[in-house]
């Protein structure tokens, strides 16, 4: 006991004698930012440290995408053709949008099983309003998305206010909204959409002017550079750690290479697809909301500790309901893209493997099932993997049953990776 006390005072004196040393210890540059100064070796060391600590991030899924490309390209040289890649990035939008909503729910550590049915129900609502009731298509679309959000908010109410498990509430939702969709579609079971209408054009419109794709790539790259550069300048001016210019330049070049490669690819086929642009806009917007607004901070906080969030004055109920509303809204948006792809709302919409694919995409992309970790970009990476596999297998004319099994294998692998990295992170003290 006395020894403990002595050590306390000894430390204290040390701190007083050496105030600069203490200050230096606090202001020491962020270790992650020191990496750059050590050049390539620094990055390598940082990479090794992250691997050891189980911070894999998006690495497994990017490796997975490379493997998928190599394997399918070697089986069929049409896989990496502009036409196939362009189609993959259009087809993925429907499932991808639903997956974005799933990311929000997963960040809370919850699950939404109703998104498939809600997407089907919303497309049915839009079709009935636009075709049977003669509403203008844009109004039908807005109403359908609002309906999706309201449905999600209703699920959220049962979960957040009444305390029913989200799993059970959304399972009930899955059945209810499936029934609702079948009821809404009526006896024919299919409502054909005008393929030249607003909904139809969602997945068929391409910006044929080559300048569109190149312009977008240039704008994205320039915006990224400017925001990073200004952000770092501001950090430097107030004296907190910042990334050196060379680091920012490296990132900008990487982004530029990817953007322009995609632009060249699109321009070799029909041009920049509208669907992909809308998806990217939503990804940027949701990522911004999650990481740069206090609402997003609340979502992450709830995924980390509900009690801590409550004590910090966060309205837990409101955030939970809003997250389920977002999930429902994105399910509706996804449903409209899926309906656009087949130019109709029919009875099979929102059924089959859609729900599983949307959840799998979020998880494959790197969103944790345990809450509090993930980004909406994960939805993009994950859905790319799933749709690429589907298209690759289609090129090989491999039957549906095998597709299911392979997708299942990918999902299982991802979940195992998630669980293992979590364990490693725990032992490395980072979870």
């Amino acid at each position, binding site marked *: 006991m006395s020894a403990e006390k002595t050590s306390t005072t000894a430390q204290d004196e040390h701190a007083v004698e050496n105030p600069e040393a203490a200050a230096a210890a*606090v202001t020491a540059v962020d270790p992650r930012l020191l990496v750059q100064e050590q050049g390539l070796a620094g990055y390598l060391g940082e990479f090794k440290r992250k691997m050891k600590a189980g911070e894999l991030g998006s690495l497994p899924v990017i490796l997975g995408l490379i493997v998928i490309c190599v394997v399918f390209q070697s089986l069929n040289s049409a896989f990496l053709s502009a036409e196939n890649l362009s189609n993959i990035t259009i087809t993925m939008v429907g499932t991808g949008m639903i997956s974005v909503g799933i990311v929000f729910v997963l960040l809370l550590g919850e699950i939404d099983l109703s998104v498939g049915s809600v997407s089907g129900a919303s497309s049915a609502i839009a079709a009935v309003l636009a075709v049977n009731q003669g509403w203008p298509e844009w109004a039908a679309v807005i109403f359908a998305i609002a309906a999706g959000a309201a449905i999600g908010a209703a699920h959220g109410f049962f979960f957040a206010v009444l305390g029913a498990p989200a799993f059970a509430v959304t399972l009930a939702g899955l059945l209810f909204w499936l029934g609702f969709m079948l009821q809404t579609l009526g006896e024919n079971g299919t409502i054909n959409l005008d393929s030249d209408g607003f909904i139809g054009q969602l997945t068929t419109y391409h910006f044929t002017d080559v300048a569109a794709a190149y312009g977008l790539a240039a704008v994205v790259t320039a915006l990224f550079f400017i925001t990073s550069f200004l952000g770092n300048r501001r950090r430097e001016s107030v004296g907190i750690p910042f990334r050196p210019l060379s680091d920012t330049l490296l990132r900008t070049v990487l982004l530029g290479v990817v953007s322009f490669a995609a632009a060249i690819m699109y321009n070799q086929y029909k041009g920049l697809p509208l669907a992909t642009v809308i998806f990217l806009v939503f990804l940027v917007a949701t990522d911004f909301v999650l990481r740069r607004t206090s609402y997003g901070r609340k979502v992450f906080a709830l995924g980390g500790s509900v009690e801590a969030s409550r004590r*910090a004055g966060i309205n837990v109920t409101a955030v939970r309901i809003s997250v389920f509303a977002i999930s429902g809204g994105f399910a509706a948006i996804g449903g409209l893209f899926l309906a656009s792809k087949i130019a109709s709302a029919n009875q099979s919409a929102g059924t089959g493997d859609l729900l599983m694919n949307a959840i799998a995409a979020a998880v494959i992309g790197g969103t944790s099932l345990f809450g*509090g970790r993930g980004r909406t970009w994960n939805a993009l990476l994950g859905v790319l993997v799933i749709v690429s596999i589907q298209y690759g297998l289609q090129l090989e004319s491999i039957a549906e049953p095998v597709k299911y099994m392979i997708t299942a294998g990918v999902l299982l692998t991802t979940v195992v990776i998630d669980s293992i990295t979590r364990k490693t992170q725990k032992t490395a003290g980072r979870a």
Partner: protein
Amino acid sequence: MVHVSATPVLALRGVSKRFGAVQALTDVELEVHAGEVVALVGDNGAGKSTLVKTIAGVHPIDEGVIEWEGKAVSINRPHDAQSLGIATVYQDLALCDNIDVVGNLFLGRELKKRGILDEVEMERRSRELLQTLSIRIPSVRIPIASLSGGQRQTVAIARSMLGEPKLVILDEPTAALGVEQTAQVLDLVERLRERGHAVILISHNMADVKAVADKVAVLRLGRNNGVFEVKTTSQEEIISAITGATDNAVTRRAARTTGSNGEVSK
């Protein structure tokens, strides 16, 4: 020597609290001055937590008066306590493991610029705050999960300091900490005192109490059982006041006289 102001920051006068048939607190008196660390000790069920919760506004008091800087105030909600300048750090830390240090420090009161989180300003202020409290952590941008128990406790305390409170209540800050980590937290408690904050420290650990507290207020079965000057009181005396082992006329008299001498010497 630490200067102690004449008017206590917080004074409880004859505070009582009843939960149904249980009389949790009876006529409790407590005074805390600026720049003073008062340890609140007592056995399990002595009413420490209840007393702290009445101050923090979780449970309103039934009888008695709470004086804040000499004026009677009513504290009915946690919000009342916060707006007076009372910050409470509870035993379970209430931090989010997945969010970084800056995010946790500003959780629920993020700084915004045109509706967008002002990460740069939050990071700058976090570093400034941690520096003034001489809190040493590897980086303010690592998630709480990667900090040790002691570092987490110091972050939790630092978090309570953001609102510039006059009184900080620490509920068992060193429970479940190792020797080294306990020392870090005790250092921090001393720094709070040096900066002129009043501190109420709940602890079971006599070594900690002896190390940092100026006064020890003992609760026993919901009543005051003496207020002791740490410097002039032996550990055995405090322990016997806690357990009531020597609860007789002599000790009661000793407690009374110590209590009245409390503010004189220093």
